[in-house]
């Protein structure tokens, strides 16, 4: 499945069926050996780097939860100051790190247009600390801090449109992709790697524990997210927006929602609300 599996080695401790571990392999295998990875605190850090072992065969650094873009800024400036003009500095952050606590740091990095490729693996909650909501968690999804009770019915806010927000910084490249679209992920990573300045890619990546679906469904669930319009594959290149996946007809969102325990409590009206929102968004594109 993966051509060169040794850059993110087997032996990490991710849950069975983890969509994010697939994203890690896609990242390192697309980008090759001449990279340095700066990773935020989160599941991917915890599953890959328990002393004295490491799943990374490319240079890797973890510092804190909310500062990866700044750490990467330091790395790339030091490399360039010392005459290294070739190594790609790559941030890997979860949605919690990217959308929430590290957002100021990210915005600062983008505004300075640092020569860094930022990759967010978006599993739509703080999974590492036990499935709490983030600003990436979709409307109505239940997490341990957006619970589905008798009065409040899951998360009451929409998902934050991170790619648009990032693109608004006028960086050369921002894109979103999904672990289930292998060619799309690889193409975007390689394209981004060839560009200088700040680049951003969000990869939709499932978490069977947090989304509460069967462990063998990572691929299907993420594919359905795109096919139902719940996640889009798109690119902003120098301000130009492009959709990379436009089916003639979207599948109903219910097909995606019904596979996952986090949406199990949804009423018919709530499902319709999501459906309507997706269709309106789609019309705009």
């Amino acid at each position, binding site marked *: 499945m993966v051509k060169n599996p040794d850059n993110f080695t087997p032996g990490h401790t991710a849950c069975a069926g983890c969509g994010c571990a697939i994203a890690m392999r896609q990242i390192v295998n697309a980008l090759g050996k001449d990279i340095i990875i700066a990773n935020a605190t989160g599941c991917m850090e915890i599953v890959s*780097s328990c002393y004295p072992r*490491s799943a990374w065969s490319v240079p890797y650094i973890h510092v804190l939860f909310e500062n990866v873009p700044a750490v990467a800024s330091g790395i790339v400036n030091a490399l360039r100051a*010392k005459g290294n003009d070739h190594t790609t500095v790559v941030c890997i952050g979860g949605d919690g790190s990217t959308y929430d606590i590290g957002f100021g740091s990210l915005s600062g990095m983008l505004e300075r247009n640092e020569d860094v490729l930022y990759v967010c693996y978006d599993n739509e909650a703080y999974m590492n600390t036990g499935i709490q909501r983030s600003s990436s968690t979709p409307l109505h999804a239940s997490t341990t801090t957006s619970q589905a009770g008798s009065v409040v019915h899951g998360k009451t806010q929409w998902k934050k449109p991170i790619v648009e927000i990032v693109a608004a910084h006028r960086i050369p490249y921002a894109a979103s992709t999904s672990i289930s679209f292998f060619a799309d992920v690889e193409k975007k990573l390689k394209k981004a790697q060839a560009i200088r300045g700040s680049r951003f890619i969000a990869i939709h990546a499932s978490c069977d524990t947090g989304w509460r679906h069967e462990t063998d469904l990572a691929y299907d669930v993420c594919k359905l997210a795109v096919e139902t319009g719940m996640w889009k594959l798109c690119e902003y290149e120098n301000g130009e927006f492009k959709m990379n996946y436009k089916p003639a007809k979207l599948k109903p969102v219910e097909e995606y929602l019904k596979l996952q325990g986090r949406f199990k409590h949804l009423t018919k009206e709530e499902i319709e609300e999501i459906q309507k929102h997706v269709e309106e968004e789609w019309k705009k594109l």
Partner: protein
Amino acid sequence: MVVKTVEGSFAVAEAIRECEPDVVACYPITPSTHIAEDLNRMYADGEVKKYIAVEAEFSAISALIGASAAGGRAVSTTSSQGLLLMHEALFAASGMRLPMVLVVANRAVSAPLNIWGDQQDSISQRDSGWIQLYCETNQETVDSIPIAFKVSEETRLPAMVCMDGFYLTHSVEQIDVPEKKLVEKFLPKFNPEIKLDSENPLSLGVYAMPSDYQSFREDLELDLQKAKQSITRVQSEWNNLTGRNYGMIEQYMMKDAENVFVAMGSVCGNAKEAIDQLRANGEKAGLLRVRAFRPFPFGEVAGALNGKKNVAVFEKAVSLGGAPPLFGEVLCALNDLSRKPTVSSFIGGLGGKDVTVNNVAKIIVKIKDGEKRFEWV
């Protein structure tokens, strides 16, 4: 030797420039701002390689961590709230054993908001695993920059150079800023073996289970204690080149002193003046200035205070609800002495409250009665 009449901040920026940092990352906060602005102008003129104009102090320290991990010489400056905002990352920098220098222009912390000098900001970072040097004069601060880089890089411990805000940062005086040639002779190029390098991949900042974690902390503590040897040696190398000699502590009129004032930073200038005046009246007064607060020079302090009658520990910081920080360290240093002096605590100068020559003289005279005191001046 080139003595120039310049602002303390500017001289510090020049000293930093002569150390040829790979990465400077700063965020403005009074009273450290002039240093950042001076460095940025040097960057604009091509004299400093990289200046990252970060969006917050938290990113400044994080950028230093990244730069140092990539094998770069990295430096920043901050004060007060900026340093407090860096707090979490300070522990990461030392825990990851990343050399770097942070110039702290000491300032009071909020609330209430106050931009003037005390040492609460850096004293509050004392458990973070950083070397901390407190300077009395601008000359000492300037000299401490190359010293701090050298010590930091050989011990793989980050270092803070602390200078009192305004008293030092904004005062214009004659300063000998070491020339590049001299700094080159003193400070080797920074080329660490352990660094992020795609030709030699390794993982930094991994997490440790209970079976391993404590030994990391123990190593850090032992190495910080050992850094004393490095500081002492590096300072004597500096002395050989410049004739300016710094120790872990400084003793002034201590030989026959009976009543001793202990303090850190620029207030020691006034203390020396007070002691000169008291000496002129036949008082046996002396000053023990602590320059290195981390690692704390227990042996040197005990040696200096052995046999003295009365000691007044004066400090510009509080540990609210606990022992005053410098006072507590001094008491700990004296623990094993058979002839212990009476030690009193004086807290003062907070938020820029004046500490005059007269204030110091009064304290030294006051402690002569041998009473133990806890007072705010």
